[in-house]
């Protein structure tokens, strides 16, 4: 049997549905006349399991083999995710200006292979403009660094 993308997706959704049922254990289901907090989550989880199984059953008619999925763009996506995650982790600690300049420079230099000078200058200008727009013009507080900016 050829493993198809819908086999994987359907199984993942069915497993997620089962996980919801397991996590809903301590939520009261209630009665039909007085449904509890666990009523709709269990209903939705049941539907998710049903649709997941349907997807698996119809996989051979409707979906392409798993190996046909083009993951070439993962070379772009993975570093973007890592750099963004690092930026989020730093955001409230190092403040908006330092974090965003560092994040944009990292994206431009490490992912896009641009010159560090151009990347640094561009990042600094747009981050300062954004800071001015949000913090000064729109008076929306942005996280500050331990150095006070």
């Amino acid at each position, binding site marked *: 049997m050829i493993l198809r993308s819908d086999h994987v997706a359907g199984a993942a959704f069915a497993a997620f549905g089962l996980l919801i049922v397991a996590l809903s254990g301590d939520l009261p289901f209630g009665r039909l006349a*007085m449904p509890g907090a666990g009523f709709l989550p269990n209903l939705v989880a049941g539907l998710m399991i049903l649709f997941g199984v349907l997807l698996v059953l119809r996989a051979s008619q409707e979906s392409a083999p798993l190996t046909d999925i083009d993951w070439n763009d993962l070379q772009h996506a993975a570093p973007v995710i890592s750099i963004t995650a690092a930026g*989020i982790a730093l*955001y*409230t600690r190092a403040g908006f200006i330092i974090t965003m300049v560092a994040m944009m420079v990292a994206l431009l230099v490490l992912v896009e292979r641009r010159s560090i000078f151009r990347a640094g200058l561009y990042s600094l200008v747009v981050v300062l403009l954004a800071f001015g727009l949000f913090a000064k013009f729109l008076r929306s507080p942005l996280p500050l660094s331990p150095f006070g900016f």
Partner: protein
Amino acid sequence: MEDTLHSLMLGFSVALQPSNLWYAFLGCLVGTLVGVLPGIGPLSGISILLPITFGLNATQAVIMLAGIYYGSQYGGSTTSILMRIPGEASSVMTCIDGNAMAKKGRAGAALCIAAVGSWIAGTFGIIVLTIVAPPLATLALRFGPPEYTALLVLGLIFLAYMSSTSLVRTLLMACLGLFFGMIGIDNMTGHFRYSFDLPELGDGIGIVPVAVGLFGLGEILATPSKNVIGEVIRPKLRELLPSREEWRQSAWPIARGSVLGFLIGIIPGSAHIISSFLSYALEKKVSKHPEEFGKGAVAGVAGPESANNAASTGAFVPMLALGLPTGPITAVLIGALMVHGVNAGPQLITEHPDVFWGFVASMYVGNLMLLALNLPLVGIFVTVLRIPYAYLYPLIIMFCVIGVYEVSHSIVDVWIMLIMGMLGYALRKFGFDPAPLVLGLVIAPVFEQSLRQSLIMSNGNYMIFTQRPIAVMLLIVSAGLLLMSAISFALKRKDWRAKLAEVEAGEGSS
């Protein structure tokens, strides 16, 4: 009718206030830029810019956000015609004949026809919206919990039926959205659900981190910069006016596109995308020279561009009159109104007439602004298109982070955005459309409340849904749609949705 005209006058008195005019202009300008730039769709544009509107009142916020929405429909055509890259999904069909016209030296004419067609269709849509929405809202005032439950079920099934992916996939996405919408404190019993002792999850998962993650970040992850390369054709200003023959060829396609687009816009689903595909197919079918399609047919630009603008206006009818989001964009707009303490739905017209009528009137003004904005500023948009995508997307990620963080100053929301970005990327890889997920998330609280209230009202008797005429009618339509899907599945027959999906996939890969 007299009441409507009187109310519309009230709307114009609101929309023509200088501050509201300014926000309509800003929305149209930003929307056009969002439409022009490949990689940012109207949904991600609206989601990213949503926090900017928190400092405004509800009327200004919705005027600006709606301007971004219909402005993006105008702007999408510029990139399609000049670069053969759809600025956003509904402009895919304009690429074919619009770019062919540009290569023949008629780029200016194609842009002008797209802009005028969009204006006519947009204005037509608003006129019908003005007439239809108030009586529909009056009817919806009779809705109780069973009717709302049935209406939301119909909305989800309609969305699944109209989707170009399969019914099962769409319903799976909607279920996932419903589940996300149930995270947090249960309003009726006070139980914490799936919050894992994180106080930030007590209020549930917000629509902004989910929408920005799925559509803003998810789109960036799936779009490596090396894939966004294109030559921009720079039209000359003196070539902007179409010839008399080109005007003549575009008149009927604009009229047909306007009506078709508006009707499809009312129906849940990615209406603005579907309408442009159907309009293109219709124009090719009725044309005396179908062989010209693909080689620069005027109707191939005029029809789809009019249809997608009319559809984006049509989508406001159920949103404003029933509080029913027909797609992720209207779902985000409903979320934006809720942030300002205004609930979209039948009470909107009676409780907040200034918001409703101010918004409707601003669309008349906004469409005129877009017409005035698009053609003279085409040179600027061409310059914007020359900014390398490699420099653009880090900027978009920064706005995503700011936008999500500023909603409630919670870093947990920003992490949710990142997780949703990764989920959106994975869903695309496996052929799922994430739009129904956002819809499920938005309707989850209303759906759960109305379902549970209905059951409590009837002492646990499901027959309450068959005892109320409006509810039973809505459920019959839902059952009919499910039956139609089941028949076409059982007979393994390709219906119009399958054909549409094939065209969409074919164009997407070209």
